[in-house]
């Protein structure tokens, strides 16, 4: 059942599962930015960000509604069913230090 194409545009660590659950213990069912995905990578927030091609410096991360602290990205484990949102600092702004 379930296992469908690999999302090759990102890093190949994700497969889009339509609505089917993960086929085995090797992957996690996550909802990332409102989309259901099968995640095969290392189970922490930093790895997920990187697998999505996101820059951990720009993105804030919320799991199940809770905003995470940036310094915890590497230590926070992902669990089956987590809903993950990336919230980006936008506002141009932060001019580089000379």
């Amino acid at each position, binding site marked *: 059942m379930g296992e469908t194409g690999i999302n090759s545009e990102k890093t190949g660590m994700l497969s889009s599962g339509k609505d089917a659950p993960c086929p085995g213990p090797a992957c996690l069912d996550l909802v990332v*930015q*409102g989309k259901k995905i099968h995640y095969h990578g290392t189970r922490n927030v930093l790895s997920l960000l990187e697998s999505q091609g996101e820059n951990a*410096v*720009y993105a*804030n991360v*919320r799991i199940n*509604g809770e*905003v995470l602290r940036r310094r915890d990205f590497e230590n926070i484990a992902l669990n089956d069913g987590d809903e993950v*949102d990336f*919230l*980006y*600092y*936008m*506002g*141009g*702004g*932060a*001019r*580089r*230090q*000379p």
Partner: protein
Amino acid sequence: MFNLSEEEILRYSRHIILSEVGGAGQQKLKDASVLVIGAGGLGSPALLYLAAAGVGHVGIVEDDIVDITNLQRQIIHTTADVGRPKARSASETMKQINPHIEVDEHQQRLTKDNIFEIIDMYGIIVDGVDNFPTRYLVNDACVMKKKKLVEAGILRFMGLIMSISGAETACYRCVFEEPPPPGTVPTCAEAGVLGAVAGVVGTLQATEVLKMITGVGKPLYNRLLQFDADELRFHEVKAPRNPKCPVCGDNRTITELVEYDYTCESQAPSSP
């Protein structure tokens, strides 16, 4: 009855015919006052639509002058305006579109010492700044003064918008507690921005303002909408009030205005 002339009734007929707006809604627009901070990428479309819609009193805070690199997205200014103050250029365009409105030009930089006085003159605030110190200053001041604020930002192919009813709904700090470290998030000048993305997001800001004034619909409170032009997708994130928020939460640690120092004091805040 309504204090609208024949000419105004014709001009706003496509509003007035909307049963949710009507003459009463148009009168509310005429009686309203809105402050737009920044006459740049976001401020341009927001100001144009507020003017066209007949918002009776609009303020512009902007201390920058029009530069040739602005014109790719800051559509309220024209090539002939290069070198002129943006606040003046914007207000002239607005009055050409709609001579029935009053426009204030605040050609100054917002600081913790002048922001309360300026925002107090208006009912709703629109944030169209491109720098984090001013963005946090505006958020905190609007929470403290219980002002309605339509917050937004853009970068590259993305935009973000969130409406805030000061001290009643989630504020910008409820989601983005502190500014990013200086130098980590690039400016539009460094990272670029697709011009029309400013149009999408600034127009959404104007839409929110018109809804708030007329009472039509449901504002984007306690929600954050991210726009991704790359895939042409909107992603809404629920953003309820954060009890740990330093400015509007249960144990407030920010009780007076702070101005973050991004070291470039000599560079006036300009608009995205």
